[in-house]
């Protein structure tokens, strides 16, 4: 049972402001959900995610699985009759969930962390490294072994990490972006 009142407009307004999307305008037609490739794997369908935002149910929406199963394919955004960029709202929600530490345990968040960590260290992604760390972090090191073997056989996995000259610049981007976002929302 969800208790609705006493939340005010704050959360919905913040999400609207951050995303530039008129969240309250959504009239729950469900077209986003109907076209969503991942909706059947979500706990809340995309239109419900928006509805939770409208109702100010911040904890529910930030800890839901749906925002992490989202594939960022923009189908919802392309089709929304209210011209709400739903995918953009998903971005905002994921970033907010991270700031509140509610992303822990979400596989997609872990994947993003590992991916970006590789980028931070080398300036570019090192696929082999990402694959290996993913396997270790999820406790299923051999899960992708068949694919990895195939890739190695076709020399489609670079063994040595890439390295760019401007790697410091890239690290600076990570640092500064994190600091700025922290400042903006902290």
């Amino acid at each position, binding site marked *: 049972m969800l208790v609705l009142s006493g939340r005010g407009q704050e959360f919905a307004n913040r999400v609207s402001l951050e995303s530039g999307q008129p969240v309250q305008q959504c009239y729950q037609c469900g077209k986003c959900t109907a076209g969503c*490739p*991942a909706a*059947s*794997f979500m706990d809340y369908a995309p239109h419900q995610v928006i509805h939770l935002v409208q109702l100010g149910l911040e904890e529910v929406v930030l800890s839901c699985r749906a925002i*992490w*199963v989202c*594939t*960022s*394919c*923009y*189908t919802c*955004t*392309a089709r929304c009759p209210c011209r709400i*960029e739903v*995918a953009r709202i998903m*971005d*905002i929600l*994921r*970033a907010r969930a*991270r700031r509140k530490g509610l992303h822990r345990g979400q*596989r*997609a968040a*872990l*994947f*993003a*962390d590992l*991916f*970006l960590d590789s*980028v931070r260290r080398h*300036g*570019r*992604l090192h*696929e*082999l490294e990402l*694959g290996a760390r*993913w396997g270790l972090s999820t406790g299923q090191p051999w899960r*992708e072994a*068949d*694919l990895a073997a*195939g*890739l190695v056989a*076709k*020399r*489609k*996995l*670079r063994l040595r990490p*890439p390295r*760019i*000259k*401007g790697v410091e*610049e*890239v690290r*600076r*981007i*990570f640092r*500064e*972006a*994190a600091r*700025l*976002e922290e400042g903006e929302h902290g």
Partner: protein
Amino acid sequence: MVRYAYYPGCVAEGSGREYEMANRAVAARLGLELVEIEDWNCCGATPGHNTGHLLGLALPARNLALASGMGLDLVAPCAACYNRLVTAQREIACDPELQVLMGRLLGRDYHGDRRVLSMVEAVAAVGAERMKALTVRPLEGITVACYYGCLLVRPPAVIRGDDPEDPRLLDDLLRGVGATTVDWAHKTECCGAAQALPHEEVVLSRVRRILEAAVTFRADCIATACPLCHANLDQRQARVNRRFGTDYRMPVLYFTQLLGLAFGLNPGELGLGLHFVPTAELVRRIA
């Protein structure tokens, strides 16, 4: 000779190696000079914008600034890279505050004044005439399901040009070299994109539907313009078959590979041996 700044993207040296090979070979044949951006960095892809708005903008912005310094328009063959570059460029251009902020983040002046093209757009810009003239082995009798995926056409407010529900650019290119393309409903259905590792079940269910549709339309192969789509459709096809008890053997080719074949390029040069689903029979039918 047309010169472009070229942004290969991180998988160009790895899992998308054959796309890179084909792109280079076909570009040379078409008279496109692809000048690789020196010291380019990862665009951040989906994890980038999923994690932070500014991070998602600044990583591609560095590349935009580098291209701007070269004074060349920019070609990004990977649909995801292309999408991130265009998105960053558009968003920053609309917001003067962001422009200033980018300067601080990059530690250098930000200019994003050069055009960003996908590989499809760059090739299409060459013109049908010239393509036709270069075609030595027309793809006659080959039925192709052109698969655009998401990031080449969406969101329409950012990625402009082709119709987001029924794009035609890729179809036009391949028909121009003699192939038959199918009018199928799954041109822009998402393959699950970046969820391949975190939520593979999403990808497998999507890939299955796309393959099913291609088979229904009697396609001989699927053509893609994105290494992420390709990885999902080609590398994970065997897993789809295992999971759903199906028996798909649908070759998935990059569109530049098909163009290269039509131009008479050597299949090896186009990396056609690097796919998981064998392409040899298809290649034989063309050659």
